[in-house]
């Protein structure tokens, strides 16, 4: 069973990363990377690395790639004009995906109700193991990472300030 899932997500991952490199439209590149990261986190779940898979999904697909999308739309590299037929097709697709999400939400809610009556599981989570290693052996790298993020914030702010004062064609943005 897990072998089939491995091949499924491996196929999606390879296909999506080919699309990241080969697609011409930058928007499609970013969206393909979202798909690739999603299937990568599915592979992490197959490898029983639940915490890292969730962090990957939240930080990458949730924050980093939305940031990418923001920049692509901000630069406005190519404008797509939709015909009304395309628009209605996208609307149909959106409604289908939304209904699927609603159905999966209903399933999740049902399993949540069932889980409340069950006993506590004896499966050890990976969060407590990783947290234990993180705050004992790897405490110094963890603290240094916060320093790195601080320096990154300084860099971005100084870049943005320089762009504001020396930007030649700021009316484009």
């Amino acid at each position: 069973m897990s072998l089939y899932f491995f091949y499924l997500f491996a196929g999606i991952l390879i296909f999506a990363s080919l699309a990241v490199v080969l697609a011409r439209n930058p928007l499609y590149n970013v969206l393909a990377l979202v798909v690739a990261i999603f299937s990568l986190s599915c592979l992490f779940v197959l490898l029983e690395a639940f915490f890292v898979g969730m962090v990957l999904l939240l930080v990458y697909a949730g924050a980093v790639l939305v940031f990418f999308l923001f920049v692509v739309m901000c630069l406005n590299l190519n404008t797509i004009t939709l015909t009304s037929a395309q628009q209605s097709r996208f609307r149909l697709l959106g409604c289908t995906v939304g209904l699927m999400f609603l159905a999966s939400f209903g399933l999740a809610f049902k399993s949540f109700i069932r889980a409340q009556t069950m006993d506590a599981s004896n499966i050890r989570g990976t969060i407590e193991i990783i947290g234990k290693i993180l705050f004992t052996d790897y405490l110094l790298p963890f603290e240094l990472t916060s320093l790195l993020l601080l320096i990154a914030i300084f860099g971005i702010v100084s870049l943005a300030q320089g762009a504001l004062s020396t930007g030649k064609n700021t009316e484009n943005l």
Partner: protein
Amino acid sequence: MIHLGNYLALSGIIFSIGLVGVMTSRNVLKVLLSLELLLAASNLSFVAFSKFNGDYAGQLIVFFVILVAAAEVAIGLAIIVVMYRRLSTIQADELKEMKW
């Protein structure tokens, strides 16, 4: 049963695709996206080694890689925005200011 070799082969394939993207694309945004693919491939092999050796430090390394990648992407995208404002393009060939 899935072996370690399957994951390592998959990781190698993704790494090669990302490397081709970094080498061939002239769009700076695409180079950054391909760099993300390289990081994702190395993350996959870290987690696979962590699972098959029973050592959770590999997953911790992935955690750090994600943090560093977030900082890298933020700086890189800020540089891209500044570049677009100054040159009105994000093709890497147009960056000629520091040419000898």
